[in-house]
């Protein structure tokens, strides 16, 4: 396979990877360089079509610094992060900066577009749901005990402050990685006109096509036991996508689900009911001009459950789904 192929790694989020070391590694490729690093619990890479090693390092450093900055600022676990401070504000008004405000604004619009199904205050539901492939679904009582702590409508925020009711928590996990991809692309474009691809654990974007208008080749890795929706049984190989322009984001994870009485519960939770979405595809990969659009389209589609593909078709979105 061509060296420029960027493997999209399924983000099996290993909690065991503690804040991994912040190291960049640079490797020469047939037509450029690849810079790899770890961030946001995922393997990350920057591909660049150039012979200029110094330039490649410059772009790699700018991108990794930006990704780590966003991780530090919006991580739930980092005690110095804005997110941690908000979540531990005990109902007090907390000062926020413009970037945080813009992200909250984006989250609010997603909340409204999804009629409340997507809610960045829903992370707390993971206290009762453990998607380990077992049949241990949460009890109605358990769900009812945490559900009152979910609800974007109870949060008030202004351009420079936020008030989060006691007990509630925000989780930027659903948008942070895609946001970091888009920020990285903007930075890379400021530095160079040469083609760059930024891949953060499978969510990726390009600054444009490769030289001579050729596409980047991106593999959507096949997940064991799933197949791309094609009725073609022999097909368990990766699907190679030629990406000319824009971003690809994948939502869903075959390893994080529950099965009980033959029903499959996806790890995607309906923020209104606190229950998993049923009959959703195992994963959806979407194409959009920017990664945060692609990621949100994939997430909104999963939230439609059985109607995921129909939703994307109606929205005239290019996508690949696995069931």
């Amino acid at each position: 396979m061509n060296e420029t192929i960027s493997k999209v790694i399924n983000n099996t989020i290993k909690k065991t990877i503690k804040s991994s070391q912040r190291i960049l590694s640079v490797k020469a490729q047939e037509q450029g360089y690849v810079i790899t690093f770890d961030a946001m619990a995922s393997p990350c890479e920057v591909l660049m079509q150039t012979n200029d090693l110094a330039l490649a390092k410059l772009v790699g450093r700018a991108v990794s610094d930006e990704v780590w900055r966003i991780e530090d600022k919006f991580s739930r676990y980092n005690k110095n992060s804005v997110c941690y401070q908000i979540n531990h504000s005990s109902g007090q008004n907390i000062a926020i900066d413009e970037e945080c405000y813009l992200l909250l604004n984006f989250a609010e619009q997603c909340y409204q577009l999804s009629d409340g199904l997507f809610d960045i205050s829903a992370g707390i539901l993971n206290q009762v749901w453990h998607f380990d492939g077992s049949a241990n679904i949460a009890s109605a009582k358990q769900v009812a005990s945490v559900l009152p702590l979910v609800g974007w409508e109870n949060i008030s925020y202004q351009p420079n402050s936020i008030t989060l009711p006691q007990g509630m928590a925000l989780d930027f996990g659903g948008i942070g990685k895609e946001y970091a991809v888009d920020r990285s692309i903007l930075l890379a474009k400021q530095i160079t006109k040469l083609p760059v691809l930024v891949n953060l654990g499978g969510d990726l974007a390009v600054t444009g096509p490769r030289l001579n208008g050729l596409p980047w080749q991106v593999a959507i890795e096949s997940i064991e036991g799933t197949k791309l929706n094609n009725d073609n049984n022999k097909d368990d190989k990766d699907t190679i996508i030629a990406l000319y322009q824009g971003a690809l984001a994948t939502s869903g994870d075959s390893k994080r689900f529950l099965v009980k009485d033959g029903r499959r519960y996806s790890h995607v939770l309906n923020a209104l009911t606190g229950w998993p979405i049923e009959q959703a595809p195992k994963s959806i990969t979407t194409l959009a001009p920017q990664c945060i659009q692609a990621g949100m389209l994939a997430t909104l589609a999963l939230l439609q459950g059985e109607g995921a593909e129909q939703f994307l078709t109606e929205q005239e979105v290019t996508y690949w789904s696995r069931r």
Partner: protein
Amino acid sequence: MIYPDNKNSKQHSQSNQHSQLKKANVKMALSMAAGALLGTGVMVNDAKAEVLKDWQFDSAFLFYSEGERVTAAEVIVSGNKTFANDEILNLKLTIDSLTGASANGAVVQAQAQTFTRPSGEGQYVTPAGETPLDDTFKDTRVQLNAQWTQPLAENYTGSIGGHFSKEFDYLSLGVNGNLAVDFYKKNSTISLGLSHFQDTFTPMGGIPKPYASMPIGDSNSASWDEDLAKTRIGSSDKKVTSDVLLGFTQVINRRMITQFNYSYSMVRGYLTDPFKIVSVLDQQGTAQDYIYENRPNERNKQSTFAQAKYHFDQNLLNSVLDISYRYMWDDWQIKSHTLDSTLYMPLSSRFGKQSYLQPHIRYYQQSAAKFYRPYTFAEQENKTTPDENYISADYRIGAMDAVTLGVKYGFSLNNGNDFSVRLEYYRQMPNNAGFDEPSELSSLTVYPVVQAVIFQLSYSFL
């Protein structure tokens, strides 16, 4: 305290309403939200990706039946391999098998007619009032095409190909080359194509002598082989075809694309159909003789073609209308008009399976070649010299109208695999281009309608 069930049921009624309202604009709203977040403008359509077709296969089975006439079955398997730098290799295998009866050119009579088979071995009899059909028509053709396409430089794409086709009595070899140049940000493409074919025809029973009378007699008699040999001028002959195609494609906007072609085709060599004869009638219209047809040994054909595809928006169900028109003319004085149209109508999708319905309508009109005669008259034939005069009663180069009506149903899966079924009805209506009809033929069908049914199954997979 809010109970999950309460909340759930409330949500359901709400979301159904809302999703109806918001159906059309989620993508746009997200683009605007992302633009505000990232400080970029609103980016809606700045994305392009496709599944890289490693090996993509198209397969099709086609069945064509003219009822009591020709029946054809065809299998096509085509493979496309895309390489790392956008080089594409296409290999295509076509096998078709034809059986049945085809019109031999002789005109219908009020009495039974007897003809010699093209091989010279044996005879067949056409009942009174029926169009004479030669029922020995049977052939299997194997065709192989290979095409290599690659970018030559930015905006330049080159392609070369080879063609091999073999039938029992026919061999065709061909090469082609094509150059396409994109400009105006790839919204316009000019292409130039050249092709060259060399065909060898070795018909059963040899090449008949033009204007010679078809010998009709006992093929077991002692003198038969000698009589037959007198009407033959060889065992095989050749034909050379050279084509030039000039094309222009223009993207008008996001929804519309147009294409214009001009082609010039030169054919040299043996263009006569060795199996076709012409009835020689007396004044009343009774066949006195059957002579072998004769066509010019060159033909220069030109055609112009215009096509427009329009992709409608949601108000018209995202359907795609395809309309094309072709005008063809040649120095045999055949002129033809073809109007073709399909409407691709997506149906609702489920689990990523997108289905569609595609009606098809085609209208074709053709004028007769200058040497076409449905029959000739005895006294007329005595005056002609074969070297200067050509004659054919093959209805396929006579005046006609034809209509095709069809529908295709298909469903494509979101990764590009595609299955379709096509059913079409074809009706060919030859007509009299102003030839006098002798009294004996007036109650007979000189220009019979040909009807055919076409059924096709196609499957494309990665």
